[in-house]
């Protein structure tokens, strides 16, 4: 996971060599110590489902699993049936402690999953399209009909974020304290929840995204558009980082693997594709619709479609060979809206048209949690301390990049590619600045709207022109190519041959 060590042989600087060799030794020692402690410091074992003989794992029903498992775990599989207030969507906190369920017609309820207590249940009397938990597992944001609202644990509305208009989906970046939303016009907003400032507003230009997920590995937000494109965004660039055409129809759902290397997308063209995010190529392609997708902490993929949920697992270890692991079908008529794995537990939460169900999926959760990262048993004091520490360690939006390991490394000297990227970014920023520049309001009848518009466009064109200067070499190369073709066929043998 850490990559290769430093290449000490090629160094000529003795002082640096000595310092680096000491550091490499320290790394080796600490890795060994960590590996040693893993053997006896991990208190819990992971779940598993092993089929014996001719049995197949996907024929196991929930009832069979529940009967084989102890009482505490069997209580985790439950059904909450609420018919009135619309299809339900659900979200878990990062430590799996609290769950928030939101009915489309306006019901919001937070439940403490450890004690199965209802923390708060209230109605907002408005369409609620999406919900996310914010920095502690108590405050949450709801994407309602017109604006995004932030509520605290008692159900009091604390903030109404008016810049997000008609939001469809919400995502929250934990370490950066950034709340981002996408609306049906395709506008992507990033807002800093700790200071309240709007970090970025971008027009994607590709229409409203039905699917919006965060890649937790590098804090990049992925959007799936109605044209079949999937774009990945960071808050500091106007253009998306990556734009890939994934499906022939609209993208209905997408999910990122926790290690950031795998992405699953589903489209209306009846295909579910697994993408390798390093080469941006399809690894596997399955047939079928999917209304919702989710990866678990251990790499199981849950596909929700109609009234059943499929769970796939990679048996080969390299995630290219996913095969069916389990299947859960619910009462016909229940439409599955969202599936989410509960962190650090072997539980899958299903939000459907008639409420919330949770089913047991052995082997999906990470059995051993780290108290400093996410603690399902945290006390109030620990939660408060964690919030303060997270604020102190808050990351700036500039640190979001496709490869998060690039921080602290030397910038590559591949001149042309780096230059082009930089130039494109600078160009975008300059054009945005030119568009946003305010013109001086002239008096004495000299501020006709047509003239103002013309002046503004001239400013934008001036900025564009300064980037338009091609280096002279490229032009001359183009001319040379056309010249070679123009010789008639009989004279081709006398043409200058390219020296190889």
């Amino acid at each position: 996971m850490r990559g290769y060590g430093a290449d000490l042989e090629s160094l000529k600087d003795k002082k640096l060599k000595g310092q680096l060799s000491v550091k490499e030794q320290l790394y080796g020692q600490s890795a060994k110590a960590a590996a040693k402690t893993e053997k006896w410091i991990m208190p819990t074992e992971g779940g598993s489902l092993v089929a014996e003989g001719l049995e197949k794992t996907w024929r196991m029903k929930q009832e069979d699993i529940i009967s084989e498992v102890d009482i505490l775990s069997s209580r985790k599989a439950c059904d909450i049936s609420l018919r009135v207030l619309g299809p339900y969507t659900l979200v878990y906190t990062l430590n799996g402690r609290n769950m928030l369920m939101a009915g489309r017609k306006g019901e919001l309820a937070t439940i403490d999953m450890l004690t199965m207590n209802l923390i708060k249940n209230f109605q907002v009397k408005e369409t609620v399209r999406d919900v996310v938990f914010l920095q502690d597992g108590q405050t949450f944001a709801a994407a309602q009909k017109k604006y995004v609202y932030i509520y605290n644990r008692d159900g009091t509305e604390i903030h109404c974020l008016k810049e997000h208009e008609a939001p469809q989906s919400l995502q929250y970046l934990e370490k950066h304290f950034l709340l981002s939303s996408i609306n049906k016009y395709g506008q992507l907003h990033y807002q800093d929840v700790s200071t309240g400032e709007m970090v970025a507003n971008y027009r994607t230009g590709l229409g409203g995204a039905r699917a919006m997920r965060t890649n937790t590995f590098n804090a990049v937000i992925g959007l799936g558009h109605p044209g079949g494109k999937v774009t990945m965004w960071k808050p500091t660039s106007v253009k998306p980082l990556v734009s890939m055409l994934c499906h022939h129809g609209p993208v209905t759902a997408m999910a990122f693997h926790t290690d950031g290397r795998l992405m699953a997308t589903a489209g209306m063209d009846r295909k579910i594709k697994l993408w390798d995010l390093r080469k941006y190529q399809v690894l596997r392609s399955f047939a079928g619709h999917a209304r919702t997708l989710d990866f678990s902490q251990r790499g199981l993929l849950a596909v929700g479609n109609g009234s059943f949920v499929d769970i796939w697992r990679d048996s080969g270890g390299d995630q290219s060979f996913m095969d069916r692991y389990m299947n859960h079908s619910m009462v016909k008529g229940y439409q599955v809206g969202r599936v989410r794995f509960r962190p650090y537990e072997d539980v899958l939460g299903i939000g459907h048209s008639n409420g919330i169900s949770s089913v047991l999926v052995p082997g999906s959760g990470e059995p051993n949690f780290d108290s400093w990262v996410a603690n399902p048993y945290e006390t109030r004091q620990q939660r408060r301390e964690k919030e303060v520490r997270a604020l102190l360690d808050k990351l700036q939006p500039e640190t979001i990049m496709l490869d998060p390991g690039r921080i602290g490394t030397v910038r590559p000297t591949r001149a042309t590619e780096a230059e082009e990227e930089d130039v494109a970014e600078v160009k975008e920023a300059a054009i945005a600045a030119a568009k946003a520049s305010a013109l001086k309001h002239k008096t004495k009848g000299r501020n006709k709207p047509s003239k103002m518009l013309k002046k503004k466009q001239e400013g934008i064109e001036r900025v564009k022109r300064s980037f338009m200067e091609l280096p002279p070499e490229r032009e001359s190369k183009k001319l040379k190519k056309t010249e070679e073709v123009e010789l008639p066929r009989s004279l081709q043998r006398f043409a200058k041959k390219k020296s190889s």
Partner: protein
Amino acid sequence: MKVKVISRSTEEFTRERSQDLQRVFRNYDPALRPQEKAVEYARAVNAAKLEKIFARPFVGAMDGHADGVSCMAKNPNHLKGIFSASMDGDIRLWDMASRRTVCQYPGHKGAVRGLTVSTDGTILISCGTDCTVRLWSVPIAGAGESEDSSRNVSKPLIVYAWKHAFWAVDHQWNGNVFATAGAQVDIWDHNRSEPLNTFGWGNETSVSVRFNPAEPNLLATSASDRSIVIYDLRMSSPARKLIMKTKTNSIAWNPMEPMNFTAANEDCNCYSYDARKLDEAKCVHQDHVSAVMDIDYSPTGREFVTGSYDRTVRIFQYNGGRSREIYHTKRMQRVFCVKYSCDGTYLISGSDDTNLRLWKAKASEQLGVVLPRERKKQEYLDAVKDRYKHLPEVNRIVRHRHLPKPIYKAANLRRTIIEAERTKEKRRKAHSAPGSISAQSYRKRRIIREVE
């Protein structure tokens, strides 16, 4: 089929009673911690900023002398005391904790040029321009602290008068012999009124003298003919001599690597040498803008402190070319002597404005008893700051020091001059026949020759 699901019992993972500690569980899997480098970078920036906020190096000033402080001496057996002597012959013993004079030793008629303490810490030896060497008895540690208000005034144990004025004195680290520097280098015993031995090479006065910490018979002196001479007491003639382009004001041996010593030179640089190989300096420490007057090593041997004529005190790393830290005050004038305290935490500087100043070696260090958790946190912050200190944002904060305007301007001027000379050299080399001009490394450039 075999089914197993994650099942945790709450009792295992929460504490039993409220007076117990909270239970902590660790999983070192890096997959649970995304964007580690960004988090570390954010912590490095915060750590750099916090370090600057807590950087208050000046502890206090000890005033009492009536004339500029010319030299200081550490007592290796008593951590809290420091001896200082001024240009009007006044010698005092200070208690650093309360910053008061414990004992005074009047007697010298002129400037006191050298102070040193014997190995067992009972005798103080001073020498001055009045051609005398005086031996005083040092009060026992602890006796002087009970009476704060009364000042003891001591009489010298014995006074030895000699033929020439003395410039420096140093005691052997593990012996009974001390050496004085003047027109010649004399080796004295405590009980003899005449020197045991005399060394001299040429007709020049020796300006400073230092015994080697590990080898008791080895000592290094610097003379006003721009030379550094290494003597061995067992031989009748000097062992090695090195002539440089400018005079060396002071020498200090590295207590942890006793074959190396650093010389504080008039040309604003300090030169570190290996005593076995004097033809090339091991390291050139450049940062002062005026003559370096005094130098002292930390007991760890990893850094040393220098005091310069340009009114600043700088701390260098033993192998670093640039200073780690600079201390200056509006009230501190020309610094004539500096000492690193025996526990490596404080520096004491004595300057022309009659004050001794006490500084912290690490400017943002928390003094006093540090709890283990605080210490670990501080170590972590130092480590994460070191890892990212080359990145521009962190580097800008870590490197930032406020310099007084005359020093800033003088430093810029020096840099311009050095750059101009270097460019000229480069151009000369580029435009002459290849091989006719050989590049001389900076470590060799200031040495004229080594004489056996």
